[in-house]
């Protein structure tokens, strides 16, 4: 059962990045994808704190991959958005849409 009905801004951004990256969603591409699209820097500390929070809520799961040489022999940790996470994402989007109804983003 999720702790909160709606997701925070960074939670939504990270979940959307996971969906976009699919099977290749681990620390480096997630961070780079978010930085490229949002044009804002995201520290690895903030990213992992958000991922752990989403994992605690059951919105995300992770698995450990194989170690690779360019990582100093350290394994990747792949993340995947779970159905509960997708549902929370849709719920948050719906709530925002309802609140935006009748408002013009350019005129507020």
């Amino acid at each position, binding site marked *: 059962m999720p702790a909160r009905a709606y997701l925070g801004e960074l939670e939504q951004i990270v979940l959307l990045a996971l969906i976009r990256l699919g099977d290749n969603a681990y620390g480096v591409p997630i961070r780079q994808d978010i930085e490229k699209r949002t044009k804002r820097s995201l520290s690895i500390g*903030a990213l992992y704190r958000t991922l752990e929070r989403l994992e605690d809520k059951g919105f995300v799961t992770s698995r450990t991959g194989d170690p*690779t040489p360019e990582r100093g022999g350290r394994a*990747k940790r792949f993340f995947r958005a779970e159905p509960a996470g997708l549902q929370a994402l849709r719920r948050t989007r719906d709530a925002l849409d309802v609140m935006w109804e009748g408002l013009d983003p350019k005129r507020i």
Partner: protein
Amino acid sequence: MPRKPPRLACFLVRDESVLGDLIEEYNTCGRSDAWFWRQAWSLVWFAGHTEKTERKRRVNLLSDLWIDLRYAVRTVEKSPGFAAVVILAIALGIGVNTAIFTLLNSLALRPLPVPDSRRVVGIYQTFQGNNVSRNINGEASLFSYPEYERYRDQNRVFSGLAAYYPFFGATLAGETPRDMRGELATCNYFAVMGVQPAMGQAFNASDCNAPGLFPVVVLSDGAWRNVFAGDPSMVGKTITLNRVPLTVIGIAPPRFHGAQPAAADFWVPLTMDPLIHAGDSLKQDNLSWLVLV
């Protein structure tokens, strides 16, 4: 050839897969050492942030405790009678527990205040059969004086065997007579216990060859200080216990107060029993009254 990231910064990263992410990006994207440090510190910062939240939760617990305390005070003010009963019950409970622990501590936990106390043991005897009938002064496991003599003379196990009567109450003569609790002990008692008097001397085994011939007493440190005001010339003086004049020959060391939980005020040779105790206990083979060590 992969570059080596700042080693100290690597120590800040606890998670191996996160460190792998940093090293991969450091090498493949040509990130600077400063970037690596910033990322490592961001992990420390966010970990600390989580701990701060935990601490805040603990502070809330403390404030909850304060609210509980204030509520307790208000309840006590509202019904003081009930509160008094509760407080009394708790106080009694604590008191009983303390008393039981004090007893257990003196009986079982605290070692005897004698040198090398592991070598001092108590002796018990068990009677087989149903026809045992004795004049019990305590219990059947206590010894009569003739029994003690036989055990002592045939002892090949212990370096010494002493006997004492631990429940000897006597009246000290003076301007204001005073009750004292002491022990009647065989003259090898202090030697068996390995205790040297702080002042004067103790009994010697040879002093007790005949009943009533050695009217002396060794005082405990507590009795010497409390009853005789720590008189430095106490040794050699005469005190009167149960109308029998006894010469003080020694003062026991401060920590020694006998082998019983209740502290003894004095020790008188067991052979003085017929005079000071007014009886013939020494001769009775059927009277259990002595403890053996």
